[in-house]
């Protein structure tokens, strides 16, 4: 753990780091691939809707000696679909089986009668409508649409529209992947699945917002410095919050993994598994997309901004100049650090968060790093020497 703790510190200072933003095309590609697989899976296999959505058949049996568990096994075996079995007050069973039409219903009825040892005529078979009717679905869609609009407006105000757009794309990405996995695995979609999807929707946005909050803080006053481009600052901010992201994901995923693997293993199926699977896939996708998709997307959007373009230009020009000078007179290098100071003085925030030297260490070559590192303490001390340096 101590190594992990050190890693946190080094991530924080930007000594180590993974260059999420620069390698974004790779991750975009991975995501597009997964999403396409999910969509194809969805298109080919389709979703296996449960009785709650599609309706099915309901069989009411007279009093039997079989237990609920046995009846359920029989019903599922004979019909090949998920069955819901409830015991009624008079000792009889109510067996609901999805995707059973009239013809099949007679067949299942006969099988049930035989297995349960009751007369065929005593079993009452009827088609049953969905309990999760169209109205619930329609209202849920309306609610989602309203929520999406509101959350985009909120994010556009609290952050900016680029982040809102990126968060939305990440959200769609997560939901598509989860639904696709569902289609591929072939689990029956139950209300539990839908609730799981809604939970993911909340979580995915939550996670993205936490990451964006760090990004916003890092990028404050970015135009007043010329050391880093927006992408570099975004990357640094990502690495800074990486520990938090990993910890949160682990903490959120562990109990769900428990539900999926232990709970599911104990029962070998059922609603618990349905929910846990959608949650597990969705939470993992949500954590992944906040880091690998959402933030790089924001960086992409931002770099198109004229202001940021100008900044990137300035940064490049400056680096070029520094390099030239370094070539001309290597001994002059330390002095270069001080040259930055006027900039730093103007922007306390970026001094605060974006400063650290080898922020972009992952992508810069070694020749530059030592100089950058030497520059750091100087800045630090300046910032720390002034009580008002840090503002909240």
């Amino acid at each position, binding site marked *: *753990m101590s190594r992990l703790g*050190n890693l*946190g510190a080094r991530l*924080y200072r930007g000594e180590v780091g993974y260059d999420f933003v620069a390698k974004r095309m790779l991750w975009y590609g991975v995501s597009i691939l997964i999403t396409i697989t999910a969509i194809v899976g969805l298109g080919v296999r389709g979703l296996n809707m449960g009785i709650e959505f599609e*309706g099915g058949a309901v069989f009411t049996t007279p009093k039997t000696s079989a237990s609920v568990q046995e009846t359920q096994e029989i019903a599922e075996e004979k019909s090949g679909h998920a069955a819901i079995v*409830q*015991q*009624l*007050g008079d000792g009889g069973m109510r067996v609901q089986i999805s995707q059973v039409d009239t013809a099949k219903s007679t067949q299942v009825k006969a099988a049930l009668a035989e297995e349960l040892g009751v007369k065929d005529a005593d079993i009452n078979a*009827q*088609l*049953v*409508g969905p*309990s*999760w*009717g169209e*109205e*619930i679905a329609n*209202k*849920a869609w309306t*609610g*989602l649409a309203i*929520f999406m609009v509101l*959350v985009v407006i*909120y994010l556009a105000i609290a952050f900016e529209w680029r982040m809102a757009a990126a968060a939305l794309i990440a959200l769609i990405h997560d939901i598509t992947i989860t639904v696709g996995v569902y289609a591929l695995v072939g689990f029956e979609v139950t*209300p*539990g699945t839908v*609730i*799981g999807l*809604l939970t993911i*929707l909340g*979580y995915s*946005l939550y*996670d993205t917002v*936490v990451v964006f909050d760090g990004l916003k803080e890092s990028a404050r006053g970015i135009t007043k410095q010329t050391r880093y481009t927006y992408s570099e600052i975004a990357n640094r901010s990502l690495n*800074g919050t990486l520990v*938090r992201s990993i910890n*949160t994901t*682990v*903490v*959120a995923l562990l*109990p*769900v*993994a*428990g*539900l999926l*693997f*232990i*709970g599911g293993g104990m029962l070998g199926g*059922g609603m*618990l598994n349905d*929910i846990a699977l959608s949650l597990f896939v969705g*939470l993992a996708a949500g954590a992944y997309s906040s880091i690998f998709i959402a933030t790089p997307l924001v960086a992409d959007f931002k770099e198109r901004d004229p202001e940021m373009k100008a900044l990137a230009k300035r940064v490049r020009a400056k680096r070029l100049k520094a390099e030239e000078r370094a070539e001309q007179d290597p001994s002059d290098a330390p002095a270069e650090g001080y040259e930055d100071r006027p900039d730093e003085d103007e922007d306390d925030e970026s001094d605060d968060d974006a400063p650290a030297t080898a922020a972009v260490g992952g992508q810069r070559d070694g020749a530059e790093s030592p100089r950058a590192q030497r520059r750091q*303490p100087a800045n*630090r001390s300046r910032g*720390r*020497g*002034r009580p008002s*340096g*840090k503002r909240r």
Partner: protein
Amino acid sequence: MAAPKKGRRSTGAQGKPGRALLLILLAMVALVGGMFLSGHTKPRLGIDLAGGTSITLEAKSQPGKKDAINQTNMNTAVGIIERRVNGLGVQEAEVQTQGDKHIIVNIPKGSNEKQAREQVGTTAELNFRPVLTYAQAENPEPKPSPSSSGGSGKPGDKTGDEPSGTPDDKTGAESGDASGDEKATAGSSDGATTQGRAVTEGLRPAAATDDESPKPSGSGKQSESPKAPEPTPSAPAPEGVPASLQKQFEKLDCTTKEGKADAGRIAAQADDGDPTVGCDSEQPVKYVLGPVAVEGKNVSDANAALDQTRGQGWIVQMSFDGKGSDAFGKVTGELSKKQPPQNQFAIVLDGEVVSAPSVNERLVGDAEISGKFTQQTAEDLANILSYGALPLTFQESDVTTVTAALGGEQLNAGLIAGAIGLAVVILYLIAYYRGLSLIAIVSLLFSAVLTYTIMSLLGPTIGFALNLPAVCGAIVAIGITADSFIVYFERIRDEIREGRTLRPAVERGWPRARRTILVSDFVSFLAAAVLFIVSVGKVKGFAFTLGLTTLLDVVVVFLFTKPLMTILARKKFFASGHPWSGLDPVRLGAKPPLRRDRRTSTRSTDHPKEA
């Protein structure tokens, strides 16, 4: 230097963390105590986990509406029943069609079954019809209790203000008295009962004039005439009443249950455009009613209220949508010009006249039904009215108990798996955060206790039922709650890496962590709020759980975790950066707090890093 100064400031606010902790501990003790006192120590479980009652409703075919029982109407009925039984949306009741003409309603264990049965079965077709004429029910032996002639306006409820003055009131002294003060309800109903009896016995117009009405009588909200109309029990058919209807009217027996039921059927089946007859729901009074003036579907909302000003007890207030408002204004405007009894309109619910107030001026906006409501009956009626009428009439064909749809093993497996998951989470937190994990674990436990208690208490109060998806949602909420601590801890550690000591780090890390927590929880809460308002059924139940856990997250972090952190930061174990505290500056790679010359410090920091 910044750090010590900040530190001193936070020391100045030392009383605060203790107070916040005390406050929330008190709240928790109160909640837990309340839970044990009320005896509801377990959350009410949904039908998937605990089973419940299953009610089967059969659509009754009505003569003249043969094709009424079709898929569309059944689905509409399912939707309406769903909203009625789910009231606040957290009851987790399930409604579905079965076969061609049955609807199954499953309600979780522990619901008020009787109430639910009444709620699902009532058709609740509401109409406003003008009264053409009315009469005392022709019955030689009226029962003494449900008595009084109907039809009069509310005693003394004059145009909102001035409840006492009823100068132009023919009803006379008694009504005036009754309305004079808060005792009105008691006074008027007492008086009326005796009065009413006299009337029914004698059926004299004179007596009737004197009568006042304790029976449910609707009234326009702002202005309602106290005017008791001249009842004309034996009067010849007024204009506009066709002879056939007059005959029907004469035959109508509103004194017996069967008679009322028959009358109800006649009235319920009458076309909206035709006049019809009807019985009063409580008094033996019968009416000839004009064509429907305002339809119940134009009622946009209904709610129960306790009428304070006029002392009528519980009433049901209705507001109309645009169309309803216009129609209501128009019909009251016309009625107000007419002579009694034709200045009354009847509120007809499922074929029964629940009230028939008289009007003396044009009314707009709201209407209300008053009567002998208790809080419960008023709320039930309001609930039924706000979700509209069923397109069909239903009869209960079967009521039975059902066992859990998922069986206990699902819940048990879920709980065991959740517990194992939680244990692993705790191990991870201890391994990573060491001493700090103590705060995280205590906060998590605290949050779990709060969630459990509140869910248990919400069972009996608003009928909140916990189903399996909600249990899973609560498990995910662990992650979101833990995230708040993690965000905060990481901030503190970042501050320590900057070279601060613990106490300033705790105080400086907080505002930034707080903003992150608030911004992200707001998004979750927004999702919960929108879904709760817009959606129905299980989605609504989910939204409720999400909103609840999000709010609790904020409460716990603000009132528990932060104060606890502040207090523990003073302890030597944490403040000195003990290796097991999780806040060891060396381990965190903090920069040494002392600096002399820039160059020197440069070298000194470079060294440990490279080592």
